[in-house]
């Protein structure tokens, strides 16, 4: 047992004390430094209003887009957004209410667009006859949109805006 060796114990204790003193010095000096400099300002604020524990008025939820009009994708790989309400649509290990309309076999009755065939390919490149487990949870990529105002201005530019013009 290491603890039974008195010499070893002493060295350990000495080095521990030295280490603690050094660490305290570092902490104090850096604390003083950071107090001098201005604290970084994050815009938009991410931690809620000041004081954080007070009762603040919560702004009403923004209205989701429910007009059923297909939106242009901002870039080719963008998962299409959901232009309808999905409140209460169960997406669990037991059932997938999205696929009740968007599955290939059900699109005739529902009139919904079929899920893309890219969803039929599993991670080994094997093409299955229906959605693969890794694409099962639709809302991991496809989301609803609301009429919310962006928190920060968006400077996104379409890829077509770059490069040589025809």
């Amino acid at each position, binding site marked *: 047992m290491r603890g039974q060796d008195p010499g070893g114990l002493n060295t350990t204790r000495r080095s521990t004390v030295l280490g603690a003193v050094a660490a305290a010095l570092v902490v104090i000096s850096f604390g003083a430094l950071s107090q001098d400099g201005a604290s970084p300002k994050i815009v938009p604020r991410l931690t809620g209003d000041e004081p954080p524990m007070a009762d603040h008025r919560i702004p009403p939820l923004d209205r989701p887009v429910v007009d059923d009009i297909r939106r242009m994708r901002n870039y080719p790989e963008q998962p299409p957004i959901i232009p*309808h309400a999905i409140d209460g649509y169960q997406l669990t*290990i037991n*059932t997938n209410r999205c696929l009740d309309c968007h599955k290939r076999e059900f699109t005739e*009755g*529902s009139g919904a667009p079929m899920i893309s065939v890219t969803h039929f390919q599993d991670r080994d490149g094997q093409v299955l006859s229906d*959605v693969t487990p890794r694409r099962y949870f639709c809302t991991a990529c496809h989301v609803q949109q609301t009429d919310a105002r962006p928190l920060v201005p968006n400077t996104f530019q379409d890829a077509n805006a770059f490069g040589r013009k025809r």
Partner: protein
Amino acid sequence: MRKAKALLLWVWNWAVWFWRIISRPSAYLSLGFLTLGGFICGVLFWGGFNTALEITNTEKFCVSCHEMHDNVYQELTQTVHFSNRSGVRASCPDCHVPHNWTDKIARKMQASKEVWGKIFGTISTRQKFLEHRLELAKHEWARLKANDSLECRNCHSAAAMDFTKQTRRAAEIHSRYLIPKEKTCIDCHKGIAHLLPDMTGIEPGWNGAPELQGKTGASLYHPEHALRAFLASIRSP
């Protein structure tokens, strides 16, 4: 054999004695006492019966059993039928007990099986409940299908539905299936107040009947099954 004969004789004698008493006019009690007393007792009995019946028709009574409180009630509290912008709430009996008297009594008689289940703990644990969820759900779907979603229509009437206030998709589907009475509410609106069981093989309402679909129907491949198999395979490498 002799014992059975003696018992039969005893029952017969007792019936004859009872019939002799009730088939003769009363010698001591007045007609007024008997008719008025009968009326008052009838009122008391009927009032008591109906009050007891109504007590069993409350949400409080339903969730007094932990099976209901811990499973289905908790799920209901997350749905639009519990909390919504207009503040109308549907409680358990609004959807699960018919409002018409004869239908209500028929349902209450069926509920004696639920008393049986309570006594013997058929769904007394979460695990047991999950195992029975599909069967229980199928009972309710069949009941609502058979009575043309009567409990839905107690509040939601097709005549009062303003299709112009619905989204275009909803209006189209309702006018295509609901108005010609081709489908009923529960065909499409399953799982609106509770979590759904394993829906493998249960087609959405807008799909044709399974016997009309042939072998190439949708029931051959189930993403839910594939997902479960995948999860099982990564859990036990």
